[in-house]
């Protein structure tokens, strides 16, 4: 796994829009040109965002005991999206650490708002599938609001929002890496703290309770962490599709491990690798054009979900 990370890292460094020889590369590391201002931040962002989204999707799947849960499915991304749309379309400027943090704050308000709604519904509705559908509907609703906003917006704001909406790991803003790293650390620490309680949770609420899990605070902790992870990534990279949902399943394809504590490391590393891989593909090192990130994540993520559905028919997984 560690090898894979190193491998991907070097791959990212090699991948380039402008031609750079291997000899040049060494010099570039010591000076501060294209590499330090663009490629390395982008690679780090991709790695961190991939890990954050994977973690968020995985914890949501545990929380809802549903393999199809994920930040984009539950409308969490849409919540952040709408709030960011409000900020961007209202014409706030892009530069400076203040706007960067403002963006994060907006995205967090959005994601927590949606999560609070979902939590409210899930406490009333026992059927978890219903909760998922509720999340989807919230997503559509918020999307509708967003399109009204877009319709009403001016040209220049519109462009910045649309390019944000296609999602990208490449738009670097001040302090971005630290905030991403911070939320990833928060996520990892939460998993370490909860430990085997996450496993107990999968047995069902009743069993979890009888094993000493405080249901209310457990739920709250997971929701806050998932909202923070997904919200922060959405603020900086846009509404990235599928990575959160697909990542845990992608890992399970080669690493079947039911215990959360053991799964954690592999998931985070694979999430980071996947983020960088997607970033690499969007930049298409062999050509000069750039693909939208969401096109790439959907191309890679959707088949995983389809595979999951087909497979779950066979092996008696119920929703």
């Amino acid at each position, binding site marked *: 796994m560690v090898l894979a990370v190193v491998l991907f890292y070097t791959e990212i460094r090699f991948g380039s829009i402008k031609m750079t020889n291997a000899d040049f590369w060494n010099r570039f590391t010591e000076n501060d040109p294209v590499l330090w201002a663009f490629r390395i931040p982008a690679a780090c962002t991709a790695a961190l965002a991939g890990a954050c989204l994977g973690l968020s999707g995985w914890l949501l799947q545990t929380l809802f005991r549903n*393999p199809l849960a994920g930040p984009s499915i539950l409308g969490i991304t849409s919540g952040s999206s709408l709030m960011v749309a409000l900020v961007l379309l209202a014409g706030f400027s892009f530069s400076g650490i203040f706007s960067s943090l403002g963006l994060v704050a907006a995205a967090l308000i959005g994601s927590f708002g949606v999560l609070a709604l979902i939590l409210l519904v899930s406490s009333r509705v026992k059927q978890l599938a219903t909760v998922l559908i509720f999340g989807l509907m919230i997503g559509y609703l918020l999307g509708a609001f967003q399109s009204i906003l877009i319709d009403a917006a001016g040209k220049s704001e519109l462009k910045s929002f649309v390019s944000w909406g296609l999602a990208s790991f490449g738009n670097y803003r001040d302090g971005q890496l630290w905030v991403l790293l911070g939320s990833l650390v928060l996520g990892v620490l939460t998993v370490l703290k909860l430990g*085997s309680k996450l496993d107990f949770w*999968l047995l*069902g609420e009743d*069993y979890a309770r*009888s094993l000493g899990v*405080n249901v209310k605070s457990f739920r709250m902790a997971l929701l806050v962490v998932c909202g923070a992870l997904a919200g922060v990534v959405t603020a900086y990279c846009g509404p990235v599709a599928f990575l959160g949902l697909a990542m845990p399943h992608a890992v399970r394809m080669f690493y079947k491990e*039911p215990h959360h504590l053991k799964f954690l490391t592999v998931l985070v590393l694979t999430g980071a690798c996947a983020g960088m891989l997607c970033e690499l593909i969007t930049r298409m090192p062999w050509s000069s054009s750039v693909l939208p990130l969401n096109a790439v994540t959907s191309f890679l993520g959707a088949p995983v979900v389809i595979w999951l559905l087909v497979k779950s028919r066979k092996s008696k997984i*119920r*929703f």
Partner: protein
Amino acid sequence: MILELKNISVGYSKPLVSSVDAEVLEGELVILVGKNGVGKSTLLNALKGIQELKSGTVSLFGKAIVDYSMGELSRNIAVVNTARPVLNGWTVLDVLESTDKSTGKEKSVITEALALCQIEDLKLKEVDVLSDGEFQKVMIARAICQQTPLIILDEPTSFLDVIYREHVLQIFSELKDTFGTTLVLSSHNFAPLLKIASQVWVISHGKMEVMQSDFDYDGIIQRLK
């Protein structure tokens, strides 16, 4: 005395069962019977300490159950219920290991539970492919691994065919006779359980009657009506 119910009533907006008094000694097996919806599960939840009482007190080893912390409860009460969770990729062994570490579980406990429930051959199987009957036995084995003095089971025999039911009966009597475990369970198919029961609690018309001995099936059915 392990459990003491003093004048308790349980329910939601309206009480389902009220003025319940009962005592359970260590190693007893209590069967809770009643028609659907009379409040069997609600009463069991009250005994597990996860359902608020409308009045009265439930005491576990002489201490009110509301005064126990979640951790303490998990060392005293194990539960088995009817829900079948999705456990993608879990093996039977993974399920049996899902007990609180602080109970000091050892490998030997798991081996013992596997043997008692005769599911050694399922040990490495994925739980999602098990039949409902097999799964029920796995959950009973898991509760045994938790090594608590009290196990509360909600409809443990409901998915089982005749052979399985007979076997679960054996497990219960061994648990109470050899290990001194106290069992409180609700059941619709209680007839075969009567021969190993110490008490039968019959809920009907919002009251609970405690029968201590001479359980006759027809008499219980009469009371349920």
